[in-house]
């Protein structure tokens, strides 16, 4: 079995055995929707506002997951275990990013449904295919940047403080692009088409940061 697959399998097993990240991210999302209802003073949202509420909520929920990503390695000596094995250390990055992608996807299945019920004005069904694409690309960005920032922060003293303040600015272009992409999907008059310009921006972001993180991750593990 390839090392990144073995690592991913171990992480999925751990999360299934003792679920922490996924329930927390989910509950956080639902609570945030309620807060938005009261904070914005609106029963329903559409268009750019809907895109903003959904995506910012998912972004903040992702931060929770990112904070926890390497905790089991740090606390239970997993880093040493991986570092001692004759494997490419970047496999750890791939496994963690893939795991985060899966966790985010799981959370989004329920969170988007909840959003559609609680706050979204237009019907979600026509928006769904486009939304899947946008969320898939966004999840890539979150996974890549999240895995890197999490590894960066986990061995510092102020780790859960470092993650949000570093990751959120880094993710701003991804948020800009996905918000512009989601806005026409939630348009009050019925879902519009995705602006390809922003698809290109988001895909480019994923590519650049994916490659960069892959190249640079090794340096975080060496000592």
């Amino acid at each position, binding site marked *: 079995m390839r090392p990144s697959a*073995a690592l991913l399998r*171990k992480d999925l097993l*751990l999360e299934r*055995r003792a679920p922490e990240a996924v329930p927390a991210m989910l509950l956080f999302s639902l609570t945030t929707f309620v807060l938005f209802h009261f904070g914005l003073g609106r029963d329903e949202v559409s268009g750019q506002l809907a895109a903003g509420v959904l995506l910012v909520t998912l972004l903040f929920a992702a931060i929770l997951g990112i904070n926890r990503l390497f905790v089991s390695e740090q606390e239970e*000596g*997993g880093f040493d*275990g*991986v570092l*001692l094995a004759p494997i490419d250390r970047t496999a750890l990055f791939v496994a963690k990013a893939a795991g985060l992608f899966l966790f985010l996807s799981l959370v989004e299945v329920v969170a988007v449904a909840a959003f559609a019920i609680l706050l979204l004005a237009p019907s979600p069904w026509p928006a769904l295919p486009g939304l899947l694409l946008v969320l898939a690309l966004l999840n890539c960005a979150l996974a890549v940047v999240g895995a890197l920032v999490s590894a960066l922060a986990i061995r510092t003293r102020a780790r859960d403080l470092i993650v949000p303040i570093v990751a959120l600015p880094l993710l701003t272009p991804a948020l800009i692009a996905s918000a512009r992409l989601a806005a026409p999907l939630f348009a009050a008059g019925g879902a519009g088409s995705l602006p390809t310009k922003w698809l290109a921006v988001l895909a480019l972001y994923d590519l650049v940061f994916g490659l960069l993180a892959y190249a640079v991750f090794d340096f975080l593990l060496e000592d």
Partner: protein
Amino acid sequence: MDATPAIELRGVGRRYGERWALDDVSVTVPAGATLVVFGPNGAGKSTLLRVLATLLRPHGGDVHVLGEALPEREWAVRGKVGLLAHEALLYRDLSARENLRFHARLHKVPEARVEELLERMRLAGRAEDPVRTLSRGLLQRVAVCRAVLHDPPLLLLDEPRANLDPAAAELIEPLIGRASGRTRVVTSHDPAGGLAEADLALGLRDGQVALRAPAGEVDPAQVEELYR
């Protein structure tokens, strides 16, 4: 028999900020021999082990492990070293079997080996329980399994007999003891016991070598001096 020493350190240093955790450490360990390392806490014993395990890079001097120069060839060394440290390096929510299988996959070791070790360590009965439910003695036994899973020619053992009752100590002896035939570096706080099972003795204090001699020539009193 291969004349290349298993470990060769010459003037090795490892820095932590402005302090040298290891300073000008030199020692040669022939293949198959046992080196015992003594020293008070903070002397650099664990640092030394971690440098040998390729977990830390040396900041000065030459390090050769199993004929390979570190840090350039650390890739070649990695699968050949077994480390038994203070932390068990096990995931507490997974069972012993799951943990060992995970490490087996990383080291490309067949699963049959996991079962074999679980049998030898008499862990088969508790192999499905999450590791956090195991007593310290059992935990140490699982950690020993993990350390020898990939049959490494070099063993690095940080106080291996801590937490073990005599029966368990007997169980692990053939795997990590002198009889295993592997080259071993063992840290110990027990002068007489440590010297008895070693070929060479190294004493560290404040990161520097304070004592280095064949084990037979060292008086336990000299070791106790290190701790003053």
